[in-house]
């Protein structure tokens, strides 16, 4: 596969850097406070308590841990991969019934067993990016070729329907009930269809709601949630042909996915974590926000629990009147792009894998995220930061073995509060060889591990190689030759076209 590479080069000034990169504002997002390191951390992770079952006794304002015991709140029941299947690259999933889930990917779809993720059938077909289902029909969007239905009355005998072309741009999300199908059609707004009419060949929308950048949609009963840029809207769609906007609220970043239940609304905010609202006939009420490692591209509500697919992990939070309480994380097998959950079990669209995770009730704990490798300048003295983060519900204890081998650390044991980060400074005066250093923690599912201390080649701490590449500089579209600028701070962001 040809993968032409491109990269964005940003030369930055102090005045504009944050605005240009949509970085955090001076004020922390709702439900968070700025910690001693100057970072926003969730105040909705146990109220700053230091142990399981303390009930937030220190007077914190976040949700309490109640009777939770120390443990791993998510278990992986299975993760399936077929090396012969080239079509997966799953980015969407939906629960069909207690036994079956449907996953969609770049060149088709698969029906998976909800117990272990194994595929019961797989079909090559249209590029399929997101899916929802209702009344025995799955509704699938394709990106640039509209959407289509799949008759799933018998999950083992699916019958795909024809493509329906509505808007001309990119489709981002789909939501369905037996009364309405909604498509998030980017700059072309939100398109609402009568599913029965579409299935009978009438592809005209019931209505199109204006929007600037509609990227996510979900429906619960006669309510519909729509993410338009950095705003989430709640609509009454009792009459899908004439929806009524009930309320809208600001998000702390652009939304990638939205989930709506009878009382909760949750938005995946990519690299900015997940934001939660409660809702009623009185409207939307901000509940809280929490960060995740990676990028929150998929969210699913399951009763009072919120699952978040965040590429390298899946996060599970319990939703309470005092805000979301992050119970823990589970590593994805590959990359968790989307998630569907029901009855305490989640099906993860895990890139080439279909992964089943199960909620373990009554337990929570710390959730460790630690740097896996540090790179040192082989030519001289250098110091790197080993960052130890705690995304979980209770305080974390992390102990690094003494490095040795020409490396040293300013401390070896750190305590990290929920939502916090601690840094261990690791130094070397010019390493000749890599050293592997072990660590231990009280995270139930990451009790031990290792960090690699590596003499760098071309990485952090070493000079970036000079380059001379063709490109263009906005707004001039003509090609020129560019080199690495001297004396300026530079940001390179690589991406590819396929």
């Amino acid at each position, binding site marked *: 596969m040809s993968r032409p*590479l491109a990269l*964005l080069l940003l030369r930055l000034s102090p005045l504009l850097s944050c605005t240009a990169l949509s970085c955090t504002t001076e004020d922390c997002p709702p439900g968070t406070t700025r910690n001693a390191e100057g970072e926003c951390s969730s105040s909705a992770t146990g109220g700053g308590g230091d142990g399981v079952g303390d009930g937030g006794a220190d007077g914190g304002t976040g949700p309490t841990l109640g009777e939770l015991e120390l443990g791993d709140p998510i278990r992986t029941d299975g993760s399936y991969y077929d090396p012969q299947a080239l079509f997966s690259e799953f980015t969407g999933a939906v629960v069909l019934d207690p036994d079956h889930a449907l996953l969609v990917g770049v060149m088709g779809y698969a029906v998976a067993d909800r117990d272990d993720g194994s595929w019961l059938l797989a079909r090559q077909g249209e590029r399929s990016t997101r899916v929802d289902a209702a009344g025995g029909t799955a509704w699938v969007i394709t990106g640039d070729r509209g959407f289509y239905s799949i008759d799933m009355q018998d999950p083992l005998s699916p019958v795909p329907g024809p493509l329906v072309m509505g808007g001309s741009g990119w489709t981002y999300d789909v939501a369905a009930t037996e009364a309405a199908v909604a498509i998030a059609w980017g700059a072309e707004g939100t398109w609402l269809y009568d599913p029965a009419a579409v299935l009978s060949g009438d592809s005209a929308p019931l209505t199109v709601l204006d929007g600037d950048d509609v990227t996510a949609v979900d429906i619960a009963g006669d309510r519909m949630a729509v993410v338009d840029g950095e705003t989430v809207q709640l609509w009454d769609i009792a009459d899908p042909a004439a929806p009524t906007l009930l309320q809208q609220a600001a998000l702390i970043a652009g939304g990638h996915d939205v989930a709506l239940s009878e009382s909760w609304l949750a938005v995946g905010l990519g690299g900015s974590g997940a934001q939660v609202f409660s809702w009623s006939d009185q409207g939307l009420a901000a509940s809280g926000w929490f960060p995740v490692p990676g990028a929150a591209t998929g969210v699913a509500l399951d009763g009072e629990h919120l699952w978040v697919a965040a590429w390298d992990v899946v996060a599970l939070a319990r939703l309470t009147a005092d805000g979301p309480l992050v119970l823990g994380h589970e590593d994805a097998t590959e990359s968790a792009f989307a998630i569907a959950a029901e009855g305490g079990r989640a099906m993860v669209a895990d890139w080439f894998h279909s992964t089943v995770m199960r909620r373990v009730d009554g337990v929570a704990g710390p959730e460790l995220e630690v740097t896996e490798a540090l790179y040192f300048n082989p030519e001289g003295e250098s110091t790197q930061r080993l960052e130890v983060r705690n995304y979980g519900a209770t305080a974390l204890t992390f102990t690094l073995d003494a490095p040795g081998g020409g490396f040293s650390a300013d401390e070896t044991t750190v305590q990290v509060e929920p939502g916090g980060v601690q840094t261990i400074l690791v130094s070397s005066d010019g390493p000749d060889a890599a050293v592997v250093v072990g660590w231990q923690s009280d995270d139930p599912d990451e009790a031990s591990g290792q960090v690699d201390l590596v003499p760098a080649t071309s990485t952090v701490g070493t000079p970036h190689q000079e380059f001379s590449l063709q490109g263009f500089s906005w707004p001039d579209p003509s090609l020129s030759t560019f080199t690495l600028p001297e004396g300026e701070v530079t*940001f390179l962001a690589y991406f590819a076209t396929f």
Partner: protein
Amino acid sequence: MGTTCLLDTQQEIYRSYGPVQGSYAPFPLQVVIDRDGTIVYLSAQYDADAVNLAIAAALEE
């Protein structure tokens, strides 16, 4: 601030980097280079806060 789009068609720059911590996918790949031309941030994960901190630190030097 200037924004430039470059074509690394032979991947000569992309492939010049050493192991990237936390790498689980080929993209995104993000690099921050300070005024001296030294790489101060290299990541294959999308972490806006970390990028912003690295840029802010480089700008303050």
